[in-house]
């Protein structure tokens, strides 16, 4: 067995050991450590395997035909595309596992950390297996393992009714995806015995167009529900805040990316691409997801839910890149298509990096302040300076500010969209400039949203006692955040080198083979036809140099600083109640987009019984109603409940009746087998 294979065995062994040890641990405290030890060993194995495959391009293949032989056995195959995502799982998994040791300390009295350890390691194993799966059964098994374990992770805090509700939403949405995956693979498989991905790849070109379209639509919704695109995003803003923060970081940073992986695998690898409307659908849904995601994030004051909505936004941005790449490829503009796909994959990496960072940062804040409500935070930059710095880097990166990584990937996606007008068909080409406008609005709003998220949570005076008494979190948690913050900076500055690596990954997919980006100068990101270039590293160097020169120039004349109170128009002292709140910050945008938000407002004023001129209290509440969601999901949930009530009649409690069901089901199965023979 070669090194990469051995590393994969180490990976699986590490996760399995972590799961078993956590369950058998003598105490809750030991369970925390065993969980992390197993997970880190597993992640190191995964990283080594991914690194070898990414570097050599030599796929790792193994098959275990006797393992669940009825379903075709387990087949493992790790190619470069899978290895990219495996690296993502392992890297973020490693950081989250180490972070979790200290973070889960507060759960010791509330939840079973043995069960948590089992599920955490199972979750990592499931995600890793998804990227290595090379036949239908293995893929579905891994997919379901990932879904079930993550459900248990979401409901870790199951005392809370909201958490249980969130778990229900999550379970429903993720199984909606699974239900679509089954017919999708059924349509793609040539025969019962030929279920490896290689078989599918050879078979799909012979499928009729209608079947291919059906496969695409099923894949789009199945993987889209996992990725969290609009309108299937409803579970994200519920499940992410409910889960422990390092699990949120894993789910938002990595798990939803596996939706993107599935889409790329099926749409571009197994199906070898399709007509223009496939890409068009990705592009359109991507634009809507990006814009709606950020707009709802703006109205959120729950720090973790805000981040969850931003995941919807970033998945939208990734879909825009993939859609643009797909359309351009179909139109024969293959070099420019590679830019779009490279941008999308790069953004996938970047989002894992900064969203992981932001969720870990939010976790530290929540651990210290015991609240997720931004209105009760404030002033944390002084009490938690390192967490604040990391969160600031993450905020700037997600707002696509240069020279950080978010800027580099969005720049590539913008450039691929600018190539739209070269498409000969006008009706398709016209969509591209509109996508540019929507993407630009999205990134502007994202900047506004993160000024709010960072400014209200970390700056000014503490808005509650909890915030005032916050202390810096454990060093192991900070260290993990710093690694990710460093990742945001390095991925941004070294973007041209990263793109070179990604272009090899793209080249390994047969559809895109032979379209590796032409080697560009080391410091520059470039569009293949030389129409645009940008160098994040040089920008950073210039910016630093000018800042230092300005500082030096000021120091020469002598910079004297006099500390005093904030200017307050003559009032005696400043209190946190005078500060701008998150609601106030978002108010102008709430008015601008009032049609979308449809806020409900409730104002009640209680006056003194003696005179109505003496006001005792004013209560103002306002809610944003996600009416799109309501309009779509209310009928669905009502219908499902009505159906469930009907189905309940079948459950009469009589064993005779159940035996009748069994016999009837058997007869129906036999009859259909005979009929379709």
């Amino acid at each position: 067995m070669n090194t990469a294979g051995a590393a994969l065995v180490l990976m699986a062994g590490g996760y399995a050991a972590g799961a078993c040890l956590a369950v058998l641990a003598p105490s809750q405290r030991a369970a925390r450590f065993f969980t992390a030890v197993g997970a880190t060993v597993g992640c190191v194995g995964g990283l080594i395997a991914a690194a070898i495959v990414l570097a050599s391009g030599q796929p790792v293949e193994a098959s275990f035909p006797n393992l669940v032989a009825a379903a075709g056995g387990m087949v493992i195959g790790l190619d470069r595309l899978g290895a990219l995502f495996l690296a993502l799982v392992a890297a973020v998994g490693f950081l989250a596992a180490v972070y979790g040791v200290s973070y889960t300390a507060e759960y010791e009295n509330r939840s079973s950390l043995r069960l948590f350890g089992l599920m955490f390691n199972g979750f990592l194993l499931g995600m890793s297996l998804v990227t290595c799966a090379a036949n239908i059964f293995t893929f579905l098994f891994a997919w379901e393992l990932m879904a079930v374990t993550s459900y248990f992770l979401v409901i870790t805090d199951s005392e809370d009714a909201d958490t249980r509700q969130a778990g229900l939403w999550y379970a429903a949405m993720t199984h909606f995806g699974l239900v679509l995956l089954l017919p999708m693979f059924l349509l793609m498989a040539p025969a019962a015995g030929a279920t490896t991905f290689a078989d599918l790849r050879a078979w799909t070109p012979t499928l009729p167009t209608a079947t291919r379209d059906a496969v695409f639509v099923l894949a789009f919704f199945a993987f889209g529900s996992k990725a969290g695109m609009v309108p299937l995003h409803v579970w994200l803003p519920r499940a992410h805040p409910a889960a422990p923060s390092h699990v949120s970081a894993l789910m938002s940073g990595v798990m939803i990316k596996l939706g993107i992986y599935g889409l790329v695998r099926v749409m571009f690898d197994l199906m070898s691409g399709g007509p223009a409307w496939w890409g068009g659908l990705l592009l359109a849904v991507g634009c809507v997801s990006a814009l709606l995601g950020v707009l709802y994030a703006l109205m959120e004051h729950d720090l973790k839910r805000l981040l969850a909505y931003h995941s919807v936004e970033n998945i939208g941005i990734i879909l825009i890149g993939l859609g643009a790449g797909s359309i351009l490829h179909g139109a024969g503009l293959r070099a420019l298509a590679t830019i779009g796909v490279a941008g999308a994959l790069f953004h996938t990496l970047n989002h894992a990096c900064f969203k992981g960072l932001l969720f870990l940062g939010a976790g530290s804040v929540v651990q210290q302040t015991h609240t997720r409500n931004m209105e009760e935070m404030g002033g944390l930059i002084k009490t938690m300076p390192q967490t604040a710095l990391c969160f600031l880097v993450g905020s700037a990166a997600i707002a696509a500010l240069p020279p950080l990584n978010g800027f580099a990937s969005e720049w590539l996606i913008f450039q691929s969209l600018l190539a739209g007008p070269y498409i000969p068909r006008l009706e398709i080409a016209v969509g591209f400039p509109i996508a540019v406008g929507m993407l630009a609005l999205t990134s502007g709003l994202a900047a506004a949203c993160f000024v709010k998220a960072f400014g209200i949570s970390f700056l000014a005076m503490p808005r509650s006692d909890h915030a005032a008494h916050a202390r810096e979190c454990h060093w192991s948690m900070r260290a993990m955040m710093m690694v990710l913050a460093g990742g945001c900076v390095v991925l941004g500055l070294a973007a041209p080198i990263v793109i070179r690596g990604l272009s090899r990954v793209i080249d390994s997919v047969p559809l895109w083979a032979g379209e590796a980006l032409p080697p560009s100068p080391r410091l520059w990101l470039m569009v293949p036809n030389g129409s645009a270039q940008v160098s994040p590293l040089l920008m950073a160097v210039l910016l630093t140099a000018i800042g230092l020169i300005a500082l030096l120039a000021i120091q020469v004349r002598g910079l004297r600083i006099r500390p005093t109170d904030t200017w307050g128009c003559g009032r005696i002292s400043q209190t946190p109640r005078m500060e701008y709140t998150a609601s106030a910050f978002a108010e102008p945008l709430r008015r601008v987009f009032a049609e979308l938000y449809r806020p409900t407002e409730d104002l009640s004023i209680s006056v003194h019984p003696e005179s109505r001129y003496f006001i005792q209290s004013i209560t103002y509440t306002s809610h944003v109603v996600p009416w799109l969601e309501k309009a779509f999901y209310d009928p669905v949930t009502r219908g499902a409940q009505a159906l469930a009530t009907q189905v309940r009649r079948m459950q009469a409690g009589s064993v005779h009746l159940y035996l009748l069901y069994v016999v009837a089901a058997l007869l129906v199965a036999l009859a259909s087998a005979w009929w379709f023979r």
Partner: protein
Amino acid sequence: MIHYVMIFVQTFVAVALAPALVGFIRWMKARLQGRRGAAPWQPYLELWKLLGKEAVVSHTASWLFHVSPFVVFGTSVVVASLVPLVAAPADPLIIGDLFAVVYLLLLGTFFLALAGLDTGSPFGGMGASREMTVVALTEPTVAMSIVALALSAGSTNFGQIIDRTIAEPSMALGPGHLLAFAALFIVTLAETGRLPVDNPATHLELTMIHEAMVLEYSGPYLALLEWGAALKLLVFLALAANLFIPWGIAVTLSPLALAIGLVSFIAKLAILAIAVAVLETRVAKLRLFRVPELLSASFVLALIAVMSTFLAR
């Protein structure tokens, strides 16, 4: 090498010229309003005075408050080094295109808005909230104008856009070009805090945006912010001037071409500055919640610009 020197020199010229541009607009406005007005070089004296004063900093402020002025000034200078001013930049040396310019300016605004929130003053928060709203809503127009320019030039690099317009003068009078210019001009007013979006001369809390954010700043920090803001105005006007009416810009580095480039650059800036001054004496400030209407109008202009370029192909 000579190109690097050129970029360095013209950036230096822009940084040196920026306060004069603001002073000139103020002087022009005063003349149009029948006042005598301060001399155009007044801002230099103000900057010198501010640089010598002590900085008063709130107890509440964190290190971010001290860093932000440098980020704002730094991004403005970097942007000035990216855009074409006296001479068109040569391709291999470009470290950023139009998108880089837009996002660098957003970086400055991001830090300035955070600094506004940092002191806990309600004014700062109000300014930050309004500024981010306006900036977010201008982004699509800026991007659309970029598309309109990139469509006709096939590139977002400044050098190529300018070359293409000079090669095909008829393009500059096409509807796509003119509409994109109008859209970008509205964006310039919004991004640089001019009337009718923001009033640079006000200190009334109901109306101010940019001034509210920088209210807590004083001394050298304020000088950096003012200088950065002036430079941002110069960069936007230079973009409007050189991308849409590039004639006069030096495409070679001969002394004559550079002299013509410098003179035409100053002349173009002066014309646009007069336009801004005239506009500011003629229009009143819009209510904050009417501003989105103006910005969506500019977006529609840019969209029509793109579509007309499409149809004209």
